[in-house]
């Protein structure tokens, strides 16, 4: 098996998912089955194959860029921006307490 219980816990935490204890084993098995299948790629000769990052690489060309101008058509009012929020008040989204700004 390519993935064990600890792997499942580690990646579940990274992905902010909670796998119930009684499903961890089974999840490890299911993921391993796909990864074992993916091991077929090792049989493929990848000599000289650079990774494809963008579909249609080359033909599609480099990224188009936008001019530094305002787009008021797509801009939302605070009311619209907040309309779908599970919780909001006074123009702001509300979330459980965020203790300190720890953005990396």
């Amino acid at each position, binding site marked *: 098996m390519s993935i064990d219980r600890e792997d499942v816990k580690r990646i579940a935490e990274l992905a902010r998912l909670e796998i119930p204890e009684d499903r961890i084993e089974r*999840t490890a098995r299911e*993921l391993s089955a796909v990864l074992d299948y993916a091991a077929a790629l090792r049989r493929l000769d990848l000599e000289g194959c650079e990774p494809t990052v963008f579909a249609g690489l080359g033909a599609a060309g480099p990224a188009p860029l936008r001019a530094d101008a305002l787009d008021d058509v797509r801009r939302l009012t605070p009311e619209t921006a907040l309309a779908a929020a599970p919780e909001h008040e006074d123009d702001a989204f509300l979330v459980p307490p965020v203790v300190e700004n720890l953005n990396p």
Partner: protein
Amino acid sequence: MSGADVWRLSATALAARVRAGDLAVADAVESGWRGPAAAWEADVHAVAHTDPGARAAASSAAARDRRTAPLAGVPVLVKDNLCTTDYPTTCGSRILAGYRPPYDATVIGRLRDHGAVVIGKGNMDEFAMGSSTEFSAYGPTRNPYDLGRVPGGSSGGPAAAVAYGLCPVGLGSDTGGSVRQPAAFCGVFGLKPTYGRLSRYGLVAFGSSLDQVGIFARHAGDVAATYAALAGPDPHDATTRQTPAPDVSRWDRGVAGLTFGWPANLWREGVEPDVVEGLEIAAVALERAGARRVAFDFMPGEYAVATYYLVATAEASSNLARFDGVRYGFRHDDAPDVRALYTRTRSAGFGPEVQRRILLGTYALSAGYYDAYYLTAQRARTRIRREYEAAFARCDCMLMPASPTLPFRLGEKTDDPLAMYLSDIFTIGANLAGIPGLTVPVGLTGANGRPPLPRAVQVLGPEDAEPVLLAAGRALEVGGDTIRLGAAHDTEFAWPTKR
């Protein structure tokens, strides 16, 4: 034809009547609801969200320019992962329950600009992850040709709706075959365009480098008309190609002199005999119409499946990170801190298949595994692209199954993820290579007391080969052995019978 049968019309025929003033937009739009939907929808469940008021509003908006619009009054059911301002957009997921986007996807805007009317949202596998439309939080869609079978997926809703007659055109999305495989299962045309030809702006992302909006229709000409309306650069999607889309107006030009690849090694085993028979029928029909068969061996699809399930899940794990209960959608009500908010919301909001793929993709990108999985898959992708390039150096297009099997039974593969993944073995390659593919129905096949089921072939071509694919599709439409259609048809179709 009586007004009650308007739903049988092709999109182009319907639009012509609306433009001529012979048919009111509202009647064109409601015909499918009054007729076939009344008989089918409760059993098939193709539609996830609709609203008569929104349909009426969209119909009167479309009526304003009805004299010139190419798709005047054409009703279109769009997959529930395309953002619409007038219907919820839920991606078949609990995590987006009730969500209404504040904007229209670019393709939705273009449909409206061309006179079409969005009639609702088609059911789908949650976040387009599945091949049977069984993984929808809003219940499965069933195949109109046999209600015990799946319509394919993940765009099963629009495919089934077009097949039973709700509307002549549907939009889906195709990340690994999610338009072409359900088109095959429902016996309709299904086009996955060249990557970058249809804007992804407003298509809820699954695998960004693989996703394309795709088109369902009962007739090749309708696919062409819809493609012409939607394709082209979008300033809001940097991955759209900057050149004008290929001209598909000559979709009926025929296939004389065309060469088609015949990689028969791919169906020597693991493919149902009915499917293989369909390929032979199609090849003979194309030859009869003046095309030439070029036989060669092609790379087995297992490599594509392996590559796909690393690339697509990696991108999905990233794209689905934004569903966190902060700005929209479902939020778990017991969340004392931010971490609990995320974990509980996501664990309760996503279904098991989505969670499985998020985990797989997270693993493939995580520290220490990136090179072995994600990077290797991206290199394999280059190799696969080259295989297609080499093949298309020898032919104009290639025949392929759209699915190794005919429609399977509900529940048959839900417990075996890998088996479900393998049903996309013939479609995934096109997404990895960014090339177009068209599913073409080859009539119904009944055997051993089983009800007749649709079967289909897939035509693949190099980038921007949509005109070639449509010409081949059209040639099979008029010359295929099992559906003989007059060249001037606009209503004939292998309609399902209720059982």
